[in-house]
């Protein structure tokens, strides 16, 4: 895939073409991730196998132009425990890094620092739980939020906020091996494919855009509505609370890419959900 923004004069060297994973604990890390307003100005497209990690940059105190060439998983995780940094950042990096010319000196320093604080290599296996376990938890969580809110609007706000937090953090963990997204469309595509697959084990079925900052994502078999059905006699067939969390997820994910947006959704017949992302410029 040709990247119009790649800089052909920067060379990458890989360490024998293999991945070395190294763990740096506590060396780099601010407590929170900062979403940058605009996408990176000097993205690097090196080889197909190695890619700059756009998000690790946002989480490090290193200026945002700095790119780290990383081909392995970066465990950025987070549970925000109140009053304390719940985020532990472990960055696994290759020995050689490709950097933009601005920060050559800084990165040189940084790499040395990193190498000094390297502990033992860790390979993380993705952990699985049963899908029904989360489904039961989700049902109860929505119920709990609905009951603890004064009205439906308040509940939706809470769910949106919750989804935002989770989406924001999930995307950090997901986009480790991914190239930078020079365009907004790529970020949205990432959500449609990788993000959606991680959460729902399927991809978005349809994506439309007007190329002016509005995207329409269609999921024709929305997971969390699959088992939901109303009584035929029910007067109120509103199940939006079961989808609001997902709108928050999308919003949080987009914000971590640096885009502030409004996400609305529409539940169509059976279990089709249409999410509309409107970028706030």
């Amino acid at each position: 895939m040709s990247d119009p923004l790649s800089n052909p004069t920067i060379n990458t060297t890989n360490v024998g073409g293999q991945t070395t994973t190294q763990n740096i604990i506590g060396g780099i890390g601010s407590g929170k991730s900062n979403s940058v307003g605009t996408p990176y100005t000097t993205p690097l497209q090196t080889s197909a196998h190695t890619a700059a990690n756009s998000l690790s940059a946002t989480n490090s105190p290193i200026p945002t132009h700095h790119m780290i060439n990383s081909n392995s998983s970066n465990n950025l995780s987070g549970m925000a425990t109140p009053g304390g940094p719940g985020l532990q950042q472990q960055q696994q990096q290759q020995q050689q890094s490709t950097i933009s010319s601005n920060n050559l000196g800084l990165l040189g320093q940084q790499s040395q620092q990193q190498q000094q604080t390297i502990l033992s290599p860790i390979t993380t296996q993705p952990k699985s739980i049963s899908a029904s376990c989360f489904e039961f938890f989700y049902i109860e969580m929505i119920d709990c939020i609905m009951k603890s809110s004064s009205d439906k609007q308040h509940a939706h706000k809470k769910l949106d906020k919750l989804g935002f937090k989770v989406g924001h953090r999930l995307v950090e963990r997901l986009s480790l091996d991914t190239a930078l997204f020079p365009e907004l469309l790529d970020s949205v595509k990432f959500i449609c494919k990788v993000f959606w697959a991680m959460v729902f084990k399927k991809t978005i079925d349809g994506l439309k855009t007007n190329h002016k900052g509005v995207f329409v994502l269609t999921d024709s078999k929305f997971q969390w509505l699959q088992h939901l059905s109303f009584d035929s006699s029910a007067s109120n067939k509103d199940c939006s609370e079961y989808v609001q969390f997902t709108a928050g997820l999308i919003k949080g994910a987009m914000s971590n890419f640096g885009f502030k947006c409004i996400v609305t959704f529409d539940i169509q017949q059976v279990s089709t959900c249409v999410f509309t992302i409107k970028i706030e410029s």
Partner: protein
Amino acid sequence: MIYNIYIFNKDGTCIYNEDWNKKKQSQNQSEDQKLLFGMLYSLKAFITSSSPKKIDDKTGFHCYKTSTYKLHYYETLSCIKFIIMSDPNVPDLRDDLKKIYSQIFVEYVIKNPIYKPGTTVKCDTFINQLNLYLKQMPSFSS
């Protein structure tokens, strides 16, 4: 021919009941349901006490047959009782009842966020899936 299905929860409430192919209409549905539940309770107690060997009260009783109908019974360890009444010639439907429990009841009732456990089942999808399943059985209308 399948005549009807009853699902009882552990406190004796009939949470679902549907009839097909029945020639005689019941006078008082809730009375019938209470009678059925009570009868089954006594029957199970009797079966357990009169059995020559130790028998589990939930899995011991499978079915009974009269001249006009056969009653098939399946009770889960969570005390949910599935009962189908059919004509006497229908073979044992215990396996079908197990499937109805695990593939239809659990999926479309228990996993339905709208359904509150312990209440009557009225979920559209469950009713449709149940009917689909029963009607594709060869013994449904024969």
